[in-house]
């Protein structure tokens, strides 16, 4: 497989990832609006801190479905980095294996901190 083919496969994979994520978000959204559509919205106030994915997991079911779709979406660029890491490792290109691992490390730091 050439670099270009590899890239095209990855591009298609990302597109399907986004389609899947958007479908899950839309399904959760329809469910949420069907059950809560009549409520009064309040997005004016923000309560700092004390929020995390762990806390979000206590959300009502429709919002959890939306969150699952959003997490899937956030995973798509991460998947692209993992895919690149595998490609660089197969070449092998050690300089870029190291570069990619640094980027992946930063992403993992951020995403793991979201839990707490």
């Amino acid at each position, binding site marked *: 497989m050439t670099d270009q083919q590899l*890239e095209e496969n990855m591009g298609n994979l990302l597109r399907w990832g986004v389609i899947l994520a958007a479908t899950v978000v839309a399904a959760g959204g329809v469910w949420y609006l069907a059950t809560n559509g009549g409520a009064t919205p309040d*997005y004016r106030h*923000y309560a*700092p801190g004390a*929020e995390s994915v762990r806390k979000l997991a206590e959300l009502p079911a429709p919002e959890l479905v939306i969150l699952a779709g959003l997490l899937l*979406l*956030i995973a798509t660029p991460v998947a692209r980095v993992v895919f690149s890491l595998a490609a660089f490792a197969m070449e092998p290109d050690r300089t870029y294996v190291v570069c990619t691992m640094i980027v992946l490390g930063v992403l993992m730091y951020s995403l793991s901190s979201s*839990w707490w």
Partner: protein
Amino acid sequence: MMNVLEFSLIVCGVSAAGGFLGALTGLGGAVIVTPALTLLLGVNLHYAMGAALVSVIATSSGAAAAYVKEGFSNIRLGMFLEIATTVGAIVGAHLTSVIPAPALAIVFALVLLYSAWHSVHGIPEVSETKPDPLALRFRLGSTYPGPLGAIHYQVGRVKAGFSLMFSAGLLSGLLGIGSGAMKVIAMDQVMRVPFKVSTTTSNFMIGVTAAASAGIYLHRGYIDPRLAMPVMLGVLAGSLLGARQLIGAGTRALRLVFAVVVAAMAVEMIYSASTGGFQ
């Protein structure tokens, strides 16, 4: 007082319009959607930033397939510079908890003003460059498809470009935007990478940079699923439609009108922030 259903539909419509215009003018959706949500609908700035950040990832990953097919993106250059943008994004995302919201709004407005100016003036063409020793060491130079076969290019001023990429990441994390324009400037103007390579590589980098901020935003609770849902779906639909529009003769006039609207939003943001808004 509107209910949740009406509110969500309006947010989705505003986001679709923002995504459409953002793709058409190259400004990006988030930079338009966040001020629209805060100024028009009174949404809290942090929630608007969180929802817009998610939509940045959607447009970046959604457009990847189309960009990759053209064969211009430089994956090594992108990965190398992402070290700077992701670290910058983490620093920026952490700063959002320290910097008061009105100050964030003013920084946002300044970025808006610059974007408006930038979209009207465009950026000058640059000539080829001598390769930087660092670029040779990291093999950043590459080729892109030309009419008569592959065209080689070199990459210059790696340290300056890398530093500017850190700033682009910082702004991305600080404001929940893609900061694509700044990434393109760093590659095109500073590192002298061909324009088409800069724009496609930037699209790839935007999603990864935004993902680095997303973890911190989730931790801070900025990404509210109820608001992120209509924003993400709207921006995604709008930007896909916008990217399909042919760039015709009317683009210059459109850019001008759009720049005036964006500048007006920026002024409104500064006025609001300095008179007790965004608290």
